């Protein structure tokens, strides 16, 4: 009987002891602590990957656009690769050298300079000029109607594109073996590959896929234009004839919008979503200087034809055109106003019927209104978005 009493006492003490609430200790981690310590020696990465999944605003969804799922680990790896100068022959150039975040991922040089000071042939294309490479534009995901990469449309996928950049002698000048070796030599890639691919095996295909994932994860759709387009959902704000204004635009911006819809939207897109055509000649020169698409296809019809760029963030991406010939938007507008040259392949939109170049003959007011409108396409958030920033210490 004594034993029973003892047992009861023991039990009571036990329950009392356990009932006093003990603070629980939950520890959340993404990278193994040792991996994160290693990464942190070289990189400023958050302790878990950023969300690279773009959520398109309704006015873009309403156009039937969608973005495909982005793998955050691959995009994180891709971000490091994008900024890594070790990926170039002389260790001085990364993708970001010619695609600078503060310039919507464009370069402010007329033509960019690659490894060993080699000067390239064309003006860098702003990665922030599109709303997202994985939404129709710039991808073969949607079959033949998808729009390819480069001024001459020579790459079909973001992977083809970045392999071309890495191996281009005037850009990064790496051989295929160089790429793998350069990546293997850096200790921080081991954990990044493991997280992205489940194994630390480094292959060229993985390098390329990861960069593509990052590039596809870049999205720009938070401009003033987008804010207004979202408000305008439900009525046609893109009809030149209906002349509907955006309520939050200034009078000049709304006038500029109309001029744009009348003269430019048939190529560059009224909704800033995807260009209306894959290639065009906008009358820069009367004779073929750079063959453009024709240099790839050799077709006479393609001579001096170039990709029709999207104009998001255009304010930031000077100089303009494939050869960077114009330094300001005013010069661009002047070109369309009075400077269009007649070339045999000049696109019909820019012809005054027959073999004549169109003269838009904008008034001074028209010109400044048009420029004011183009400036509403700037997305300030993109420029400082930490998800896309240089991760190196």
């Amino acid at each position, binding site marked *: 009987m004594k034993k*029973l009493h003892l*047992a009861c006492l023991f039990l009571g003490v036990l*329950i009392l002891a356990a009932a006093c609430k003990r603070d629980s200790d*939950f520890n*959340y981690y993404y990278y*193994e602590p040792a991996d994160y310590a290693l990464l942190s020696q070289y990189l400023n990465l958050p302790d878990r990957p950023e969300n690279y999944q773009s959520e398109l605003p309704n006015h873009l969804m309403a156009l039937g656009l969608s973005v495909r799922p982005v793998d955050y680990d691959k995009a994180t790896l891709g971000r490091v690769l994008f900024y890594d100068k070790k990926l170039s022959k002389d260790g001085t150039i990364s993708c970001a050298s010619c695609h600078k975040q503060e310039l919507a991922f464009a370069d402010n040089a007329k033509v960019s300079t690659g490894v060993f000071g080699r000067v390239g042939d064309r003006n860098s294309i702003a990665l922030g000029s599109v709303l997202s490479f994985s939404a129709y534009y710039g991808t073969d995901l949607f079959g033949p109607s998808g729009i390819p990469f480069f001024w001459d449309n020579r790459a079909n996928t973001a992977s083809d594109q970045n392999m071309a950049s890495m191996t281009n002698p005037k850009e990064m000048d790496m051989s295929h073996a160089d790429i793998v070796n350069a990546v293997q030599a850096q200790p921080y890639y081991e954990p990044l590959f493991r997280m992205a691919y489940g194994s630390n095996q480094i292959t060229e295909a993985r390098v390329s896929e990861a960069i593509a994932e990052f590039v596809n994860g870049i999205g720009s759709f938070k401009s003033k234009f987008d804010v207004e387009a979202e408000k305008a959902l439900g009525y046609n704000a893109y009809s030149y004839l209906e002349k509907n204004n955006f309520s939050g635009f200034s009078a000049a911006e709304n006038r500029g919008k109309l001029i744009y819809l009348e003269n430019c939207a048939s190529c560059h897109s009224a909704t800033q979503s995807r260009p209306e055509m894959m290639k065009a000649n906008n009358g820069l020169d009367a004779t073929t200087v750079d063959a453009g698409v024709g240099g790839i296809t050799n077709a006479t019809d393609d001579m001096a034809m170039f990709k029709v760029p999207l104009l998001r963030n255009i304010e930031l991406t000077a100089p303009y055109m494939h050869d960077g010939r114009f330094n300001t938007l005013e010069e661009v507008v002047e070109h369309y106003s009075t400077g269009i040259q007649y070339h045999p392949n000049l696109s019909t939109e820019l012809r005054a019927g027959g073999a004549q170049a169109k003269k838009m003959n904008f008034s001074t007011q028209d010109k400044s209104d048009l420029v004011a409108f183009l400036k509403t396409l700037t997305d300030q958030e993109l420029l400082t978005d930490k998800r896309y920033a240089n991760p190196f210490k």
Partner: protein
Amino acid sequence: MRQNLPLLLCVALCFTSACTHYYYAPNSLQTPFLQEKHDTRASIGFIGGDEFSGWEASACYSPVKYGALLVNHFQVKHVRPDDNPEREYGNGRLTELALGGYYPTKNNMNLSFFGGWGGGHVFNVYSGGAESDLRFERIFLQPGLAVQGNKARFSLASRFNRLNYISGNVNLATQGEEISTIQNIENANPFYFQEIGLSVGAGTEPVWVDFRLNINTKEQLRKFGFAKYTVGISFQFELDYLWRKKDRSHQMNSFNID
């Protein structure tokens, strides 16, 4: 698109239910049918629930009349379908010790009461490679009632639990729902809830087979990944029968010698 909505919902539901991860499941409520001092029972059984299964073992001893000592061990794992490409997985275990008393009445009834303490952990692997490992402690009070006849028996018990997750190691290599469940558990900790255990058994001394149903009565806990029920089958051996018999034969032998 409208017409497809039910279909979509169905797909979504099937999809989400396929990814259920559990953070708690009830082990069987033991009512060991003790009769007298030195009674000793051991049982082993299979137990499982919706998409998980495993085994449990229990042992019980009466050191003094009306007093008892109980040890339970329970472990289950997620039943992974062969065609599961996501490599999702989960397992959990619990070991506990309880002290209590029993009181056999004349009419084959047996009342019992246990208070116990134990702990264990649940480990989960999610699609995308994330992992979580939560450790918990549980204390309980458990009144029970059992009736045992010659060939059949029945029991009903109720367990009042205080469950506390004392620590968690959560590898976040995922982007989803599951982690928020764990954060919710952390915030809602500790949990108080009642479970009910039923068993129906058949057999005769010294072996019994029991069918068990254990139910967590608190519906709100489902959203924390607490399994609603477990079912089991267990085999109980009345170990004392062995030495009692020996004792008896020994006594008889001595009688004979005398």
